[in-house]
């Protein structure tokens, strides 16, 4: 069985197969490993990989598979989720909320022209102010929120049309 994730911008894959002898074989690129593993309390794995020991903890949510190994946490993003995502702003040209928060200030009006870097609106989240500013020169094509609105992660906030 092949498992693929996105890590640090790159796709990583591992093939894991059960062998007849009860061991497993893992293949990553050109490297082959023989693997045995036992699950321990609280989502942990005691693994023997080519006879070396590793203690790992794992968890997953809809976005990623998380692994803790040797004091470091690794977030392996699920490829199926990555594919669905846009970059920077949503496909429609809207600026989107990177995290949930409350709109505490709206500094522009629809139709107004803005310069790259101008603060468009201010969100408050986790006791911090987060300023949303124009990514490029343009005009405010659509203002989708008003002061006091609570926005969800990924929600479209404002659309800036290119000049």
């Amino acid at each position, binding site marked *: 069985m092949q498992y693929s994730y996105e890590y640090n911008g790159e796709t990583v894959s591992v093939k894991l197969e059960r062998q007849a002898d009860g061991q497993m074989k893992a293949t990553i690129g050109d490297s082959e490993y023989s693997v045995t593993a036992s699950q321990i309390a609280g989502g942990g794995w005691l693994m023997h990989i080519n006879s070396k020991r590793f203690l790992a903890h794992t968890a997953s949510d809809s976005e990623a598979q998380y692994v803790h190994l040797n004091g470091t946490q690794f977030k392996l993003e699920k490829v199926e989720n990555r594919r669905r995502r846009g970059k920077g702003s949503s496909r429609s040209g809207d600026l989107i909320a990177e995290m949930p928060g409350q709109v505490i200030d709206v500094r522009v009006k629809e139709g107004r022209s803005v310069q790259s870097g101008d603060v468009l609106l201010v969100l408050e989240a986790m006791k911090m102010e987060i300023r949303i500013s*124009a990514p490029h020169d343009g005009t405010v094509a659509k203002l989708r929120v008003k002061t006091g609105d609570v926005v969800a992660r*990924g929600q479209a906030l404002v659309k800036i049309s290119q000049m």
Partner: protein
Amino acid sequence: MITLKKCLIANRGEIAVRIIRACHELDMIAVAVYSESDSNAKHVQLADEAYYIGAAPPHQSYLDSETLIRTATQAGCDCVHPGYGFLSENADFAQAVMDANLIWIGPSPDAIRAMGVKTEARALMQKAGVPVVSGFQSDNAVLDEFVTAAEHIGYPVMVKAAGGGGGKGIRVVYKPADLPEAIQGAQSEAQKAFNDSRIFLERYIEDGRHIEIQVVADTHGNTVHLFERECSTQRRHQKIIEESPSPLLTAQMRQTMGNAAIAAAQAVNYVNAGTVEFIATPEGEFFFLEMNTRLQVEHPVTEMVTGIDLVKLQFRVAAGESLSFSQDDLTQNGHAIECRIYAEDARNNFLPAIGTVQQFIVPQAPSIRVDSGIQASDMITIHYDPMIAKVIVHDANREAALQRMTRALAEIVILGTTTNIDFLQTILQNPVFVAGQVDTKFVDDNLQTLLPDVAQLPHAALIAAALAKMDGQTQAQVVSNSDHSNADIYSPWQRSDNFRVGE
């Protein structure tokens, strides 16, 4: 036997948990309050009683004085502990608590007020002989007077709001040309934040060390200090790592600063636990910054070196008991360090990270203490401070304590949200930190060096991921109102100066 019987804890998270434990050890009934998003939180689980006080946004729950006091009264409490943050330094709330015939676990409203107005506090400290940074304050000064004063003080100079703290309205000015605009900006920001446009000037000590003295005073006229904590490891005025003793202080400086802190407390008739913050120069001068009239986030380092439980002591003092020890009974034993674990993404401009904590495993080991208000399956929400845990260690000396902290951080497993643990680990290994020479601008000045590279993915980690998937690891329940599919690491977002309450 303490005379207090039942306490309402007007807070949440790790500090509420901490206070509940203190109540229980004193045989007091602990009453928790919770907002909509905290109904199953750890502090609710541990309390003897728990009451719903409103929606998740703080001003609808944890900042709602009226509801809090009504809850305390209806539950039959005889006292209220505010923790830190929220209403802990709100003199009006303290007064309202007392007016409701409840005991306030903290200093008098007058003391809170005296230290809350920064210019007033400066004046009081000068009168009490506590060194204060050279500065200029005058309620009706015109711009020219500020310009002349700034020249006299010397640049860089800091423009600060007279009416409040928490970093609001602060501007650092490096050259005369920038002063007028800074004053204007600060005035308007102060007006907006505190409804008080008054500002004042202060010498800005660039390479200073943040050193604070813990004090405790009882109602019988006894005031002692419990030595210092150094909190110079800060990012944008936000403390990250604290320790005691300070690597900077000599025994002589410690004693002088301790006495200054006692004088500062006595100048406002301070009762209960408080902290006097100083900035110290490389030359060994030190100046009063402000006094925090409440328990501090970093109080555990003092507890570990002195063996005194500060929260239990707060209750005893508030109950009218005398301090059971004098200054001479107190010693600093060994070395303690605290690291604050934030749910934030250091590589993405330290943006707070939300998400559901899928796993939360902390080591149970000698002299490692973890204070946290979360547990596995808890959701980190947008509403509250992203500090999810504090790790505090103690050992015989600083070197041993650093080794212990390094191991403690390596053993902590927090999966499901991004944390600053790797950032902390990098700081702990930095030679300047190891040498005990970090000043308050060190982290900001060296952010590029301190930001660890994204770790290479070991094949073993990838294999573990596959094992978990093959095993059919079930997804923990994700209670979320957010749409995960649009998250992105590139973004036009800028983060403004953060204003987490001055901790």
